[in-house]
């Protein structure tokens, strides 16, 4: 069940939660991630969906949040990481197709692993609980199906 142990997961999760908590306590903002795509697109698309006032208002800090995430992972890579720089071996077609579905699905659902999974559950939102159970269930089914079909 835990071939790599529990500590890296638990410590990493606590640090991630502390980051989200710091942002909430200082600013009242929820450090959720999938909205970043929508707010960033407001710089490029004139569609009303992207030009909504809250997207324009949020796009600066959401970009700053994304840069923070990249910086934090970069710091880890050059300090605590046992492997240093790391590149995935997952096929590019899977990253591309999966990414497309992730972008469409999270924006349709109004949340992702951080929006529903961290901030939503932490807010005791039943909507988020249903969303988490749904994406976990379909993620598990899909991964097993691909494995069954020999895509590794």
């Amino acid at each position, binding site marked *: *069940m835990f071939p*790599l142990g529990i500590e890296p*997961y638990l410590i*990493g*999760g*606590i640090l*991630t*939660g502390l*980051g*989200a908590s710091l942002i*909430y*306590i*200082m*600013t*009242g*903002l929820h*450090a959720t*991630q*999938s909205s*970043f*795509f929508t707010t960033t697109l407001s710089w490029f698309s004139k*569609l009303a*969906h*992207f030009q909504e006032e809250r997207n324009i208002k949020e796009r600066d800090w959401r970009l700053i949040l994304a840069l*923070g*995430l*990249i910086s*934090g*992972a*970069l710091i*880890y890579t050059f300090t605590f990481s046992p492997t240093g720089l790391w*590149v*995935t*071996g997952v096929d*590019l077609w899977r*990253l*591309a197709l*999966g*990414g*497309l579905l*992730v*972008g469409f*699905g999270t924006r349709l*659902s*109004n*949340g992702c*692993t*951080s*929006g529903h*999974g961290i*901030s*939503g*559950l932490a*807010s005791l939102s*039943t909507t988020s609980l249903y969303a988490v159970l749904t*994406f976990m269930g*379909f*993620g*598990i089914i899909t*991964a097993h199906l691909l494995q069954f079909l020999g895509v590794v």
Partner: protein
Amino acid sequence: MNARNIAVYIGGVLFGFGLAYSGMTKQEIVLSFLRLQDLGLIFVMGGAAVITFFAINVVPRFMKAPMFGGVFKPRVSVLTRNTILGAVIFGVGWGVSGQCPGSAVASLGTGNWPVIIGLMGMFLGAYMRGRFIKG
């Protein structure tokens, strides 16, 4: 940079460091969770949610408002058909690629360049949602 944005950046650094520390920036580890070979991801999401639970539900009892402006407001939303339909589509994409938005963005900081392809897909998917779905 105002105080609010500096706080967002520093919180983001912690958030991204935590995601990398927990291995979530490695798509293989996320996929091993979804294949039920390594259940560690539960502790990442659970650990983060429990800590954030205190920030959202307990801290506001001792503080009137966030330090740098804004208001304390839990993240609650109305359950709609799209909440579930979107979560189904997200789940399939998660199972295909092992990527989710936050871990994919953070993953760039580990030098994981192929995920740029995944992020381009996410931007395109988010665009298609705005272009083709009302509301």
